[in-house]
């Protein structure tokens, strides 16, 4: 198996996901199955194949000037779970240190 239970927990932390204890083995098995299948690519001759990232060759750059489209803070906050005074509200990001 290419992915262990510990791998699952490590990448879950990177992805900000919590995996219940009971699911970690199942997920490790399923992800390994897909990655083992992906090893099919090792049979492919990739000599001279540069990576394709797929941006159109003629992707244009527009003028760096306002285009008149604007979302007001009030409108932007309408879909937010919590907001205050035109800002998104979140729990503490850093601890308050005593002066």
């Amino acid at each position: 198996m290419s992915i262990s239970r510990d791998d699952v927990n490590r990448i879950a932390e990177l992805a900000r996901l919590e995996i219940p204890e009971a699911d970690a083995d199942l997920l490790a098995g399923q992800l390994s199955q897909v990655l083992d299948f992906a090893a099919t690519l090792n049979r492919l001759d990739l000599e001279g194949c540069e990576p394709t990232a797929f941006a159109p060759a003629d992707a244009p750059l527009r003028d760096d000037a306002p285009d008149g489209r604007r979302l007001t803070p009030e409108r932007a906050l309408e879909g937010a779970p919590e907001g205050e005074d035109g800002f998104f509200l979140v729990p503490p990001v850093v601890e308050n240190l005593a002066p």
Partner: protein
Amino acid sequence: MSDALWTLSATALAARVRSGAVAPEAAVESGWEGPAARWESDVRAMVAVDPVARAAGAKAAAGGPLQGVPVVVKDNLCTTDYTTTCASKILAGYRSPYDATVIRRLRAAGAVVTGKGNMDEFAMGSSTEYSAYGPTRNPFDLARVPGGSSGGPAAAVAYGLAPIGLGSDTGGSVRQPAAFCGVLGLKPTYGRLSRYGLVAFGSSLDQVGIFARHVGDVALIYAVLAGPDDCDATTRRAPAPDVSGWAQGVKGLRFGWPANLWQAGVDAELVEGLEEAAAWLEAAGAERVRFDFMPGEYAVATYYLVATAEASSNLARFDGVRYGFRHADSPDVRALYTRTRSAGFGPEVKRRILLGTYALSAGYYDAYYLTAQRARTRIRREHEEAFRRCDFMILPVSPTLPFRLGEKTEDPLAMYLSDIFTIGANLAGIPGLTVPVGLTAAGLPRAVQLLGPEDAEPTLLRAARALEVHGDVARLDGRHETEFAWPTKR
């Protein structure tokens, strides 16, 4: 032939509205008075329906080629008049402050959004079973899936709720449900339809796609939607190809026949459908060119590294801060992210985020992601090579007929392999079109897929029209009431 409004093409329905024979309100409501009135509670194609919104839409309908035409929109395209949730708990109740560009263009042409269609959560799936709203069922057989991820719009168009629908196609999510539901499904060339307002999944692969029951409608919608958009830098600047010649026939066109692809593992009735379709194309004056093509396994392997890597990055924005659901009880912001995402995402989305995070993580990037990016170049070259020998290729859409609910949900790899014939087009950035070719002995839809080089939409539509004229295309036209008697319960 039945003359009920819900059986008409978008083109014919708009003509009646424009002539004043039918009010836009009546045109929009007609979809809800057909089979949908009896069957929507079983099929469950729709996730957001609002009679007040659609009446307002009909009243405000612009004059234009789609005046008064109802359209079903996949729930990952932003609409101001309905919620946009991607069938995920994490976007429960979310209402976009703007319309997607494709929605703006449809409305400017007179179309009315008649509701939002079900989908696999964040378009990740091939059966519409991974939806927070529960599955949609196939209108031809309620025990079977409609395909996915755009299963809701495909089913809705198939059973007359609207003549046209919009979906998104990252690895086959328009073409495969179109095949399972017996309708046309176009994935345009990468960069031809704006993705502004399409919730991103795999940005180098995503395209907005079109469902319809008539080839002429696909051409019309493509003409309305295609073209550059200042809000999407990946749209091509050059004008979109002219598809007005969709009915001009296929005389002199060469079509590729890569029969090695269906030597094994493809349903016998689907192979029969391919052979009939090829014979119809030949009868209409096209020439068959036989050659071998690269097996689809390589495309599946490439895709599930590239698409999951891009998804893990795109879905990082769902963290409980700016939109949708937030976990109620979090002491700090890191816990807020983790708890919101863990409670908000379903199992398939989590699986793909984990896979993509792994493929991009330090120490594995070269082995997985970079290898996949290079394989993608090889796959593009294989397609370019094939299209030097023919104008378009014909191949299966899915290796199987619509499968039963629950058949593949426990085996992710088996589900992924059902995309084996559709993924290549996304990796290569080329157009693909699903064309229904009648029904199996048991009454399930059969379909073929047409693939062409970049900007070959006019060619694909000409070929689809040839099949429509010759073939037993499973569409409404009033026939189904007597012949198909669907939806059926088995």
